[in-house]
């Protein structure tokens, strides 16, 4: 499926119009940053990864197969960058302090923040394969078909992996005594 508006932007980028790429950054920075943040659990690393992903996308735009969707391609770069980052990291942090501290405040809803932190901690306990399917489905709101395109896996495998990931996540919540509702 081709998004004509996006196709026009890509065309302009290839002609050297940096402003058009800026519009693509506007369109995807929020979701890509959140995908990366959920994958690596650290705000600063997520920022670096998101910036790298946009640069890589820009530099390789001429290699992008326009018959496919741009976002599937960018998500794939993002997932690969995040996985590379995780494999480089010597250890994984269960929870990034910067996420908690920057979102805190006297008027903050403590229960909501606790839930947010608990979800992130639980995600970090999942293996990257399971974590990425949860993130793509629940945070990037991709369909199974889109996830299959991003992960280059059959839809059936994506679905079964996601079911297992949800089950594992439920187990982690129960084990940690986290009240979900």
């Amino acid at each position, binding site marked *: 499926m081709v998004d004509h508006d996006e196709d026009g932007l890509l065309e302009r980028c290839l002609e050297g119009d940096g402003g058009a790429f800026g519009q693509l*950054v506007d369109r995807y920075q929020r979701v890509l940053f959140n995908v990366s943040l959920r994958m690596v659990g650290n705000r600063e690393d997520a920022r670096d990864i998101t910036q*790298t992903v946009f640069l890589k996308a820009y530099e390789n735009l001429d290699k992008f197969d326009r018959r496919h969707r741009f976002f599937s391609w960018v998500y794939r770069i993002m997932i690969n960058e995040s996985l590379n980052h995780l494999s480089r990291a010597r250890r994984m942090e269960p929870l990034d302090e910067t996420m908690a501290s920057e979102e805190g405040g006297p008027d903050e809803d403590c229960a909501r923040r606790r*839930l947010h932190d608990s979800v992130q901690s639980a995600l970090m306990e999942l293996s990257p394969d399971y974590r990425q399917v949860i993130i793509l489905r629940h945070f990037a709101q991709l369909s199974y078909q889109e996830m299959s395109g991003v992960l280059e896996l059959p839809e059936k495998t994506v679905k079964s992996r996601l079911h297992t990931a*949800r089950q594992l996540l439920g187990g982690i919540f129960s084990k940690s005594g986290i009240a979900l*509702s």
Partner: protein
Amino acid sequence: MKDKELQRLMNDQLDGLATPEESERLRRELAADEGARLEYRNLGAVFDALNRAEVVEPPPDLKQNVMRAIHHRAEKVLVRKSWRETVGAAFRKRPAFRYAYSFAAGAALGVLTFALLTGNPLTRSGIESDPFTGTMLPPPGVDQLRRIDSSEFTFQDGRVLAEMLAGGDRLVARITARGPKGTEVAVSFDPGSLNVAALRQRPASANDVTLGFGRLSVRMQQQGESQYLLYLARRGPAGSPLRIAIHSPDGLVQGELEIRAPRPGS
């Protein structure tokens, strides 16, 4: 019904993908099986928690950093292209240049072969051999540089001294840090106005050091003091101060380091 099929039905129902027939089949299963009801409730709670997890806004400078880097790279490509075009044009006009080029390449190869056969001159004693990461440019002596700004941060069981040293177009951020395990010292700078030339660490330590896009991060993994020298080169007259953020057990402390010496009298 098999467990796997029941799992699929539950997930499809919560995903909003179940057909009316499948929903009805699930309803009947749940009515008849208490274990399945509990499992369905737990799965529903996972969906609920994931759906309620908030979206975090990206840093405000993310787009700016990307666009600046793209602009910078585009400039480099243009410069490279025009240089190649000039040389290419010279070769087209003067075929004799081709022979000169071949001669120069042959001479360079000869020098390289000689160096390899007689031993690499860079491994001689007396040459700087401290461990460091980053690009392998020979860093200038820090002693010849002038201190233009400094900030000291103290916290529980730790201290960070951040200094900015300058000399000509060269800048060195010297970070001397000691702190409990897990403390993170992050130095951010504008990659549009400063290039990283080298990063040195004294002494070599087990701390996690990451040199990213406009950012150096050191996460303490061991006791004791370590020093980091971040060699920077100005890319233009403009530039904002370096930002220092320290995440310690006491919380977050932040500061800035000027990259320009204060004007006399100011």
